[in-house]
C-alpha cells in the first residue's frame, strides 16, 4: 500500500497529510502529482547542503534524514552575530527553494527539538519533543505528563525508575542542558585559511589566483611552525551552496607554492566534470589536513637552487593525474602463499623500503616475473595423475613440456578456515619445446583432496 510521505505546502493546505493512503488522496484530488520517494537522493541533497554550511563552521553534522546541526560557538561574530548568520543561511537556502526551520539553542538536542516541535520555551513543548519510542511517550501521557515542564519539575530518580533510564537521559539532554558534542562530518583540518568575495567570482583563473594567495598565506604559517603540508584541499563555495573540492597530496611535506599550484592545475585538468562557476564563487578556502615537521630550507652559500627530490615530485604529479593507486611500489611480505608474498602500496605513502631477501646463488629463478591474479585455468595432460604435466593448452595453444621441475608443494592456510580444510597446491616450473617458461600448479592432492585435480597457470618466467 502506498502512502504519502512528504506532501508539499500546497498539498497540506488542500488537506493532504503524511501517512495518508495514496488511493484516498487520489479520491480527493484526482490530479494530484505523486513522485516515488528517493532516500538516496534526499541524503545526497542533505550532504550537499551540509557542504555549503561548511562556510559557517567546520563543525557540521547530519541530523537524521532532514536536519543539520551546526556548532557555531565562536563563529557567529564573523557573520555579524547569530541573527546575521541565521539570516544569511535562510537567504541562501530559500534561493535553492528550501523551507528552513532554524533554531538556536545551547545544546544540539535542544536545538533539534526546537526546530521540529515549535520554537519558544523548552518547557512548553509536548513530551513528544523528547522523541522517545511511541510506547514510552504513551506511558508518559497516560501518567499525566503532557509537557516537558511537567517532567522537569519532578525529581529524576523516580522518573527513571518508572519510565526507564533513556527517558531521563533524553530529558537531561533536551531540557537539562547536558551538552553532547556533535561529531562533525569531517575531522577538523590543522590549518584553514579562507577568503570571501563581496562580489561572486565567475572566472576560474581569478579563483586560482585567490588560491595561490591563500597558499602563500598558509606557507607562511607553516614556515613559522616549521611544518610542511602533505595534503591540501581547496574548497570553492558557489553562491548557490554547491562546493567543489580539489584535493592534492604530496609524498614529502612541502611548503612550495609553485608546486602546489602545479598540482592543483593538474587536478583541475583531470576532473571528470569541469569546474562550473555557475553564478560565481563567493568563498575560497584552503585546508591543510595533514601537517608534518619540515625544517626550514637553507639556500646553499654558493647560490643556485636547492636540489629537489625530483623523483618524489614526479610521483606527486603522476599520482595527482592518474590517481594514487596507479603509482605503486612493492615491498616483501612474509608469506609462503605466492600471491601474498608481495605487498603493493601507493608510492605517495611514505614508507621505509624493506630489503628483499636475496636469492640463493647458482639457482635459476624459482618465481615468475609476471603473476596472474586470479590464476588461469588450463587443460593439462599428465602421464600420472600426481606427476608433472606432459603437455597443456593455454590460450588455445598447445605447449609440449620439454623440461619440468617439481612439485613444490605449497599448503593452504587451513588454520584460517572454519572447516580446517583447503587445497594444497603442487607447483611445477615447466619449459615447453620452444623455450617458454611457465609456472603451473595442480590444485588439490590427487586422491586425498580432490578426485580430479584442476590445473592452473600462475605465472610466466623471463
Amino acid at each position: 500500500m502506498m502512502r504519502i510521505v512528504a506532501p508539499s505546502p500546497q498539498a497540506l493546505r488542500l488537506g493532504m497529510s503524511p501517512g495518508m493512503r495514496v488511493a484516498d488522496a487520489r479520491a480527493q484530488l484526482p490530479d494530484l502529482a505523486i513522485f516515488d520517494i528517493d532516500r538516496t537522493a534526499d541524503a545526497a541533497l542533505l550532504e550537499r547542503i551540509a557542504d555549503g554550511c561548511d562556510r559557517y563552521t567546520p563543525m557540521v553534522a547530519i541530523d537524521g534524514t532532514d536536519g543539520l546541526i551546526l556548532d557555531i560557538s565562536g563563529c557567529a561574530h564573523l557573520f555579524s552575530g547569530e541573527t546575521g548568520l541565521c539570516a544569511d543561511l535562510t537567504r541562501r537556502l530559500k534561493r535553492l527553494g528550501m523551507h528552513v526551520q532554524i533554531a538556536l539553542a545551547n545544546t544540539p538536542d535542544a536545538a533539534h527539538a526546537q526546530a521540529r516541535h515549535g520554537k519558544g520555551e523548552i518547557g512548553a513543548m509536548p513530551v513528544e519533543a523528547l522523541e522517545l519510542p511511541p510506547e514510552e511517550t504513551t506511558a508518559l501521557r497516560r501518567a499525566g505528563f503532557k509537557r516537558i515542564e511537567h517532567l522537569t519539575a519532578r525529581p529524576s530518580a523516580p522518573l527513571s525508575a518508572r519510565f526507564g533510564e533513556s527517558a531521563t537521559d533524553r530529558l537531561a539532554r533536551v531540557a537539562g542542558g547536558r551538552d553532547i558534542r556533535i561529531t562533525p562530518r569531517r575531522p577538523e583540518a590543522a590549518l584553514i585559511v579562507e577568503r570571501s568575495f563581496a562580489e561572486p567570482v565567475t572566472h576560474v583563473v581569478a579563483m586560482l589566483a585567490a588560491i595561490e594567495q591563500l597558499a602563500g598565506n598558509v606557507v607562511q604559517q607553516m614556515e613559522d611552525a616549521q611544518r610542511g603540508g602533505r595534503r591540501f584541499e581547496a574548497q570553492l563555495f558557489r553562491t548557490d551552496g554547491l562546493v567543489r573540492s580539489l584535493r592534492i597530496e604530496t609524498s614529502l611535506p612541502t611548503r612550495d607554492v609553485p608546486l602546489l599550484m602545479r598540482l592543483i592545475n593538474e587536478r583541475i585538468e583531470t576532473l571528470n566534470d569541469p569546474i562550473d562557476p555557475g553564478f560565481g564563487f563567493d568563498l575560497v578556502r584552503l585546508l591543510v589536513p595533514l601537517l608534518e615537521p619540515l625544517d626550514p630550507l637553507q639556500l646553499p652559500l654558493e647560490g643556485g637552487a636547492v636540489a629537489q627530490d625530483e623523483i618524489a615530485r614526479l610521483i606527486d604529479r603522476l599520482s595527482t593525474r592518474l590517481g594514487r593507486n596507479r603509482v605503486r611500489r612493492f615491498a616483501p611480505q612474509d608469506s609462503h602463499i605466492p600471491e601474498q608474498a608481495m605487498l603493493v602500496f601507493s608510492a605517495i605513502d611514505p614508507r621505509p623500503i624493506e630489503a628483499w631477501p636475496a636469492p640463493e646463488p647458482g639457482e635459476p629463478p624459482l618465481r615468475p616475473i609476471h603473476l596472474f591474479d586470479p590464476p588461469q585455468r588450463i587443460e593439462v595432460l599428465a602421464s600420472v595423475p600426481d606427476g608433472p604435466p606432459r603437455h597443456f593448452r593455454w590460450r588455445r595453444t598447445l605447449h609440449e613440456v620439454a623440461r619440468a621441475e617439481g612439485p613444490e608443494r605449497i599448503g593452504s592456510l587451513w588454520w584460517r578456515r572454519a572447516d580446517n580444510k583447503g587445497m594444497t597446491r603442487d607447483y611445477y616450473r615447466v619449459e615447453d619445446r620452444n623455450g617458454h617458461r611457465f609456472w603451473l600448479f595442480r590444485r588439490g592432492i590427487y586422491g586425498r583432496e580432490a578426485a580430479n585435480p584442476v590445473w592452473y597457470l600462475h605465472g610466466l618466467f623471463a
Partner: protein
Amino acid sequence: MIRESAHKLAALRARIGAIEGAMPSGDAALFALGHALLDARLGGGLARGRLHELFAADPIDQPSMTGFALMLAMRLGSGPLLWLRQCDAARGFGELYGPGLIDLGLDPARIIEVQAPDEIALLRAAGDAVRCQQLTAVLIEPWKKTRAFDLTASRRLSISAEKTGVTVLVLRSTADPSPSAAHSRWQIRAIPSQALEANAPGPPAIEIALLRHRGGIAAFHQCLEWDRDQSAFHEPALSGGLVPLPAHRLLAAGGKGIG
C-alpha cells in the same frame, strides 16, 4: 652546376643536423652488456640516454622481452626505474611479481610502477618521467594498438632522454615496427634453457636479434643466457644440452675419422 647543388645539399644537411640535434651518436655514453662478443659487435655497448625499442618475436615471447628489458636496466645501474604499463598489459600477461624480479637479480625496491589507463596517459607520463634526471631508466609498456606512439612521440621522448641521460626502453611487444626515433631496435625470442639436474629448466635463455641501429651496425642475432649472480650475459652452452646427443655426435665424428 653540380658543385652548386652539392654545396646546397651540404648546407641543407647542416641545417637538418642542427634541427635534429646531436645526430652522430658517437658522443653518447655506452653501457656494456657484459658479453665480450656482443659488446664488440656493438662497438662497446648500447647508448645511454637514448631510446631503445624491444619487440617480441611472438606474443608468447613477451615475458622474455620484458626479461631482456630488465636485464638491460640492471646493466644500466642501480638507480630507480619507472615502469609505465598500460593497464591492459597486466590483464594480458599478469602483474609484476616482486619475488620473481629479485630472482632475476633486480631489486623490486628500485621499481616505481605506474599504471596508465590509456595510451595517451601513458605517453604523457613517459614525457614527465624522461625529464626526471634521477631515474636510471624508464620502461614503457604500451598494449597492442600503439597508434599514438608514432615518430613524433618517440622523437620527443628521445630528445628529452638525450638531455637528461635517462635511458628509455620501449616494450613494443608484437607491434609493427613503424618508423620511430629509436636508437636501436631488437627482437627477442625465448630459446630452450640449459637443463639442470633432473631435467629442470635452467637460467633464462633468449635469442636477441638486432633489427636496426642508428650507428649503422649491421643486423645480427645472438643467443644469450642471463647470469643473475654476475649480473651479465653468457654464451649458453650448446642448445639441447642433454647427454646422449653430443655423445652420439662424437661417435659419428670418430667413425668418420677412422673410415
